[in-house]
């Protein structure tokens, strides 16, 4: 102590002179290593199965390597181009070289597809020119290429190639929200007949919100009952709530088809009791109704369980106190019980909402045309149109929305308050 300068805090040491912090680190090191080894398998799994794919998806959504890699000479020659006139002979020479080489290496097809996303017709232009470019023996290349297709004399073609020469692009995100670059490189709306994603995004969000609302309205009383009935009844009730969890998702979804379809149970019943005539059977599936009903059923436990776990911790004497202080039952509920369940409502709602904006199978099976979600379009771009960049961009937007909701939720209610069972 006496050796220390004034104003400097003395370093605490153990009896044999080691600094206390070092000593503490040493004694706890073994525990920390053991703890880390215990979580290591899960950590590895999460990184491989979760973090890396998401990073890859985010990369794909902005990646634009085709023109940059496979038309590198042309891109280089285009440097310093004024962007107003048709490029000069050296650019055309480079183009011919790129196209011939790309044709032999069979890489030109990806370039053609990529450019075709931006302007239809580009695919055939590139493929045609690539095939015929081999026959051009010597220059001047400019005239020869324009002779193959006079689109090469269009400045817009060259602007497009120059714009897509950047190894990164926002164009997938733009087309994910129904926008595009016009010929001059400005961001504009897609023409109306090509607009499709925004409507689906909006439908996904409002239907998810509606499903969340339905789950809350249906789940709140059930959770209340679960939390407030004697144990032997509430256990039975809990099994009824959990039963759907133990049943295959496909089984539950197809059951709704059997119930709701036009020749199904519910329509037969309504016709049977004479409420509707057999010619006016209700269309309750393969549309929004079908998606809402089936998804509400499937996601209901995710609302009930967080609500239940919060309600379970609210002792009955709060309500007794409110009643004895003079509040009518409903007022006591509104002023005392309900505010105490808000963490549960928040947890359940965010869970159901996030799950439902990412739901795929149920809308695909029972959604028909009008009841599908944006996720079904991600699948379409993955499997049918093979535009993985666009699929990645749409999926990334969903990811960002989920993160945004999470942050708002954390701000308003606090993630620490989430309890699941």
């Amino acid at each position, binding site marked *: 102590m006496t050796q220390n300068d004034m104003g400097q805090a003395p370093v605490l040491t153990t009896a044999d002179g080691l600094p206390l912090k070092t000593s503490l680190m040493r004694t706890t090191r073994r525990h920390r290593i053991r703890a880390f080894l215990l979580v290591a398998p899960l950590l590895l799994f999460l990184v491989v199965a979760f973090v890396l794919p998401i990073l890859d998806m985010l990369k794909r959504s902005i990646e634009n390597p085709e023109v940059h890699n496979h038309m590198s000479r042309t891109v280089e020659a285009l440097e310093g181009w004024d962007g107003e006139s048709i490029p000069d002979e050296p650019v055309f020479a480079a183009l011919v070289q790129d196209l011939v080489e790309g044709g032999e290496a069979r890489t030109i097809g990806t370039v053609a597809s990529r450019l075709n996303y931006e302007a239809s017709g580009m695919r055939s232009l590139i493929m045609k020119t690539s095939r015929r470019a081999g026959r051009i023996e010597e220059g001047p290349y400019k005239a020869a290429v324009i002779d193959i297709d006079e689109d090469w004399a269009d400045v817009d073609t060259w602007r497009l190639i120059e714009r897509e020469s950047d190894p990164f692009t926002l164009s997938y995100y733009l087309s994910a929200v129904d926008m595009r670059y016009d010929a001059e490189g400005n961001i504009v709306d897609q023409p109306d007949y090509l607009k499709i994603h925004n409507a689906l995004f909006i439908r996904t969000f409002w239907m998810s919100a509606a499903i969340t609302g339905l789950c809350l309205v249906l789940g709140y009383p059930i959770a209340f009952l679960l939390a407030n009935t004697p144990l032997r009844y509430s256990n039975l009730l809990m099994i009824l709530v959990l039963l759907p969890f133990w049943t295959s998702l496909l089984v539950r979804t197809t059951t709704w088809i059997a119930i709701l379809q036009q020749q199904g149970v519910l329509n037969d019943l309504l016709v049977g009791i004479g409420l509707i005539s057999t010619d006016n059977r209700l269309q309750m599936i393969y549309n929004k109704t079908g998606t809402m009903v089936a998804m509400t059923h499937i996601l209901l436990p995710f609302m009930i369980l967080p609500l239940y776990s919060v309600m379970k911790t609210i*002792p009955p*004497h*709060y309500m*007794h*106190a*409110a*009643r*004895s*202080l*003079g*509040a*009518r*039952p409903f*007022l*006591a509920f509104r*002023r*005392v019980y309900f*505010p*105490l369940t808000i963490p549960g409502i928040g947890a359940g709602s965010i869970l159901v909402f996030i799950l439902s904006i990412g739901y795929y199978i149920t809308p695909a099976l029972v959604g028909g045309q009008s009841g599908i979600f944006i996720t079904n379009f991600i699948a379409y771009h993955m499997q049918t149109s093979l535009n993985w960049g666009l699929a990645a961009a749409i999926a990334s937007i969903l990811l960002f929305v989920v993160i945004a909701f999470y942050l708002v939720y954390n701000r308003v209610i606090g993630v620490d308050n989430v309890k699941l069972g």
Partner: protein
Amino acid sequence: MEPFAQFKNVQKSYDGETLVVKDFNLDISPGEFVTLLGPSGSGKTTCLMMMAGFETPTHGEILLQGSPINSLPPHKRGIGMVFQNYALFPHMSIAENLAFPLEVRGLSKAETEEKVAKALSMVQLTGFEGRRPAQLSGGQQQRVALARALVFDPKLVLMDEPLGALDKNLREEMQLEIKHIHEQLNVPMIYVTHDQAEALTMSDRIAVFNDGVVQQLATPDVLYEAPENAFVAQFVGENNRFIGDVVSLDADRCQVKVNGDSVIDCLPVAVTENGNHSTLSIRPERVVINPDEGSFPNIFEAEVKDVIYLGDHLRTRVSVCGNGDFVVKTPNAGGNGALKRGQKVRVGWSLTDCRALDA
């Protein structure tokens, strides 16, 4: 005077097979502090809940100011209640908690604020308006709960073991404070506790519960000095017991033979004829060690088992008349510490201090 509140032949059963409360009768006078005392499961809290309106009597009537309230919902009764775990609303500040009963009654803002301030100053918590219940200590929460039960000028205040969660010192402090507030406001209170010392400290009258039945309803001193049955004698205060048979019985004196040969002179309370089985009750502080010859009708040989030093008094455990657990309490007046284990002494007590109760 007409009783302020009344339980009339109240019975309560939850399952239709057993009665939790069997024929409960109690009249509460205006401004009275009545305690329901009993072990857990004796039905005292159930009685309180019936008065509050959270439980319905299976049979009988509950009256408040002369009118039956059996079917009146809790919020219309105007009864303040303090719960065991305070039941302060955790999402509201202290001021909001106190304002709650006033708001639901539609009082104006100014009036509410004034009453809240007054109630807080009554429990010495002025300045805590903006805090949340979780930020207060147990004793402070207890005061808030008390203030909230009083702020709307209830006709009657019920308390369900309100001090159970506090430590001993704080509990004693709060007992006096509640008593003080009761004297100040003069509002009738029904208090439930299983702590007999608490009941003796605070109450005007105490109803001792056991097994759904009121064993005795009396003022604290009567309850302690003159218990009417063995349960009350045992439950309220400390007590020495002998069990024996009545061998002779007069109006104000009876003799009970215990342990085969010893005959003890005692006051007949709940014995009616010779041969009755009886439990004798003697308070430990009424027993004298080594009394003068002939000064008591009951003087017996005893052997000291151990002596416990408790500061202000000594507890001497002796074996007498076959009872090896007989306790004698003597004030620490100096010079008492001479007794040793195994020492032979004589113990004596008067006839009136030894009550012959039911078996």
